[in-house]
């Protein structure tokens, strides 16, 4: 059965993409997009059910697929030609080398390279199934949201050419590529889907064709292609030395301590760093926010960056206690800390989200690098919660921007009273990112414990400092939303479309459900996942912690509710706030020294002079690059520490 649903999931999005491209009537295409997303969601669910009914065991299919191999090879060549044409058109000639080189290498390897052991092309296990669910549910919901959003977007941005058909084509191609990526076990297939996601994100970022979009898109392209180059070299190296290009066999070799596996693993892990936008490659993801919001949501939550995380999680058993593992953990921890600093200094909502994505990914990467069962356990939950809440937040900020005509956090002062619905979603999303019972807490607990056990001192510092700064920027944003506002409700109208709301609601409900079912999920799904990966499983969550957690979950939901109900009944006299006696009749205005009324503005702290992007980004990129170069040279040169 899976031999039908798997190719369907990979191929169907491409079919939808072609249909979207051909349909130039917006209404018709919108309907098709809805149907396609529902189908994708349903088939993903079907695959999950099938796989579960077969005992949720590792399933390997497609051993002999020479036609498919050839098709993929041809498509890869076409992709390289396409990139070359685009880089020449925009006079970025050198970027084409990053595409021609690795593609040439792969083509040569496949046509003239050594004979390879036939292994399964597709492999389904707990981790890839989890990724499928994330892609299927979150990704499809983002497409549903995009239908409404893009309508408003082109309504407000009249100067841009309406190329929605192209936009939806890219979204669907992206989903297809992601399915292919997480389901494949053959590294040659993985390489193709890898390049495809790189190109898709490049095209999405450049969607508006404005100069800044184009330059940002090329930055994203070269960084990701650099990773792709490392991946290609790793694959070829591995093919020559071990005669196989199967990912899980590589991990088996790496876990067994075979020396030939060290270099491919290091190269693939390096490639994953570029995809997960870790330092020094973080700038591409920040530049990506010039694109329309649905594409940011897609890049940040369900696809692209998660591809990097996915591959690192896969590699993590093989990286445990190696130089590669140390390198990855260090880069991840460093990114976690430094980008959370930079997030404090941002007031643009989308930029805060971008930095927080990178920061959170850093923590996941560090979890993967440490390669212990409890860190992967924590990492999986981080990934899951991050995917949902980031998607929710991006969509919500996008919808808020459509209503407020600004996405600056300072302009969201009192959003709760202006756009209550959107503020509510924003609150849930932010809470999901850091507040008590949600994902972050227990993951942080587990990561901290693991790094102490591991004796990784520097990681302990990264987590302790990083968690302080992370709470800071999220809390100040939340505070901004609920502050009493001087902006009047009548000034702004909630013009969020129904389809956007559907997506937002589903996200919010998912978030809360996941939070309540968290212990169950850990027991039923994540524990088997860890066992599959490491071959053994030690309980990460002691029963007492579990009980504590359930209590906290209950309390953090119940206490504010009860307190709210109780305090509503209290009789109160309302008074003006204290302003040294210069109030002007209400809390929003005061009388200045000229005797004129002025509106009161309360602004948050940003410290951009100390920890702004301009101050920190350059030096930390330099530092991270130096660390990467030194450690990669050590690994390739075979130095042991």
């Amino acid at each position, binding site marked *: 059965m899976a031999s039908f649903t798997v190719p369907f999931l990979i191929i169907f999005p491409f079919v939808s993409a072609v249909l979207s491209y051909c349909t130039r009537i917006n209404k018709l295409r919108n309907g098709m997009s809805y149907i396609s997303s529902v189908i994708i969601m349903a088939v993903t669910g079907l695959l999950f059910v099938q796989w579960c009914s077969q005992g949720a065991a590792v399933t390997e299919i497609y051993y002999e697929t020479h036609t498919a191999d050839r098709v993929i090879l041809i498509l890869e060549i076409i992709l390289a030609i396409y990139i070359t044409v685009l880089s020449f058109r925009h006079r970025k000639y050198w970027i084409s080398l990053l595409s021609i080189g690795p593609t040439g290498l792969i083509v040569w390897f496949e046509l003239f390279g050594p004979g390879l052991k036939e292994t399964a092309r597709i492999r389904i296990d707990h981790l890839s199934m989890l990724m499928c669910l994330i892609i299927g549910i979150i990704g499809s919901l983002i497409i549903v949201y995009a239908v409404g959003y893009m309508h408003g977007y082109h309504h407000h941005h009249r100067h841009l050419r309406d190329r929605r058909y192209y936009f939806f084509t890219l979204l669907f191609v992206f989903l297809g590529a992601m399915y292919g990526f997480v389901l494949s076990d053959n590294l040659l297939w993985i390489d193709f889907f890898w390049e495809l996601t790189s190109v898709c994100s490049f095209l999405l970022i450049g969607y508006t064709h404005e100069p800044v979009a184009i330059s940002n898109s090329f930055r994203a392209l070269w960084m990701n292609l650099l990773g792709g180059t490392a991946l290609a070299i790793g694959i070829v190296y591995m093919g020559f030395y071990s005669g196989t290009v199967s990912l899980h066999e590589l991990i088996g070799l790496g876990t067994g301590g075979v020396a030939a596996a060290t270099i491919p693993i290091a190269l693939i892990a390096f490639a994953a760093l570029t995809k997960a936008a870790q330092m020094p490659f973080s700038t591409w993801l920040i530049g990506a926010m010039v694109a329309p919001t649905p594409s940011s949501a897609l890049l940040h939550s369900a696809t692209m960056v998660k591809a990097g995380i996915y591959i690192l999680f896969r590699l993590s058993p093989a990286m445990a206690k190696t130089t590669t593992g140390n390198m990855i953990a260090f880069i991840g921890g460093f990114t976690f800390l430094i980008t959370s600093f930079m997030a404090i200094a941002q007031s643009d909502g989308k930029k805060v989200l971008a930095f927080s994505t990178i920061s959170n990914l850093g923590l996941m990467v560090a979890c993967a690098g440490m390669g212990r069962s409890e860190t992967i356990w924590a990492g999986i939950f981080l990934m899951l919660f991050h995917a949902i809440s980031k998607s929710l937040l991006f969509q919500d900020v996008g919808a808020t921007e459509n209503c407020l005509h600004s996405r600056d956090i300072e302009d969201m*002062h009192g959003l709760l009273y202006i756009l209550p619905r959107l503020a509510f979603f924003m609150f849930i999303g932010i809470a999901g990112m850091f*507040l*008590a019972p949600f994902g972050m*807490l227990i993951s*942080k*607990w587990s990561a*901290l*414990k693991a790094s*102490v056990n591991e*004796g990784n*001192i520097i990681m*302990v*510092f990264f*987590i*302790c*400092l990083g*968690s*302080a*700064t992370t*709470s*800071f920027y999220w*809390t*100040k944003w*939340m*505070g*901004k939303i*609920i*502050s*009493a506002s*001087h902006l009047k409700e009548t000034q702004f109208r909630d013009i969020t479309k129904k389809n956007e709301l559907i997506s937002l609601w589903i996200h919010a409900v998912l978030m809360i459900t996941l939070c309540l079912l968290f212990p169950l999920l850990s027991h039923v799904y994540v524990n088997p996942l860890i066992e599959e990966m490491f071959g053994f499983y030690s309980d990460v969550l002691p029963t*007492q*912690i579990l009980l*504590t*957690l359930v*209590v*906290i979950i209950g*309390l*953090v939901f119940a*206490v*504010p509710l009860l*307190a*709210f109900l*109780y*305090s*509503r009944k*209290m009789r*109160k*006299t*309302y*008074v*003006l*706030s*204290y*302003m040294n006696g210069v109030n002007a009749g209400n*809390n*929003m205005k005061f009388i200045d020294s000229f005797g004129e009324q002025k509106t*009161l503005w*309360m602004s*948050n*702290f940003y410290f951009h002079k100390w920890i702004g992007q301009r101050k920190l980004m350059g030096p930390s990129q330099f530092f991270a690059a130096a660390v990467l170069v030194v450690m990669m040279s050590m690994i390739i040169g075979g130095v042991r520490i």
Partner: protein
Amino acid sequence: MNMGIVYAIAYIVLAPFVGGFLDGVDRKISARMQRRVGPPLLQPFYDIVKLFNKETISVDSSQTFLLLTYFVLMLVTGVMFFSGSDILMCFFVLSTAATFLYFAGVITSSPYSSIGAQRELIQMMTYEPAVLLTCVGFYLAAGSFNVNEIASTGTSYIFRLPGFFVAFVFILTIKMRKSPFDTSTSHHMHQELVKGITTEMGSKNLALFQITEWYENVFLMGVICLFFVNGSITGLVISLAVFLLVYFLEILIDNCCARMKWQDMLVITWIVTFFTAGVNLVILMVIR
């Protein structure tokens, strides 16, 4: 486990009295240091009773609910700690509680209250590394985050965790909102931040805030004692003595320092944390 429940109930019932009494002692000693007579020892309780009997006035309707949440979560923190559960979890709940206090401060949009709340947030960021590192220190020394297990191993950890102790006492000044780190609220009006985060809290709300602060102080003193307890009576006596000493030290610091800028507070605290707790951590991890 049963003893844990007893301790937890004792905390709920006694902590406000202990906290209030300590507050009274604080005022008395401070007054004597300033050559004043000072209020009676039980003055804090009189104040609370008076606040509860006043008319409820408020700037924003939601403030009460936020403060109530702050209060309950603080109780939960203490109960978790004294019933012997996970210390890291305790501090996570504590920071969630502090988040609600921040909300209660900013929700009014009042200038002084907002400034105080913003600074409170900076204070949270300032002390969090030291707090988390202290938890890590206990974990390294006792092999568990569990308060019960930490307290019942039969050795005082102060000898292995002196650096963590110094770091924790240092940030205690911030947590207890004492000078020079009283940047979020002050004892006296007519200063640059008036009463900071508490400016807009009136009558019952202020009383609630005050009681929560007492609960918090007792919890923090509990953590101080955790460095010294070793299951014996002497350990208990020593820890109580240290607890009083630390409290006196806080009063002394409070009375001989002027308020610091928050920038300096942040930098100094992180440096101190790094050189005390950090160095201790490195040593402990290398020894292991």
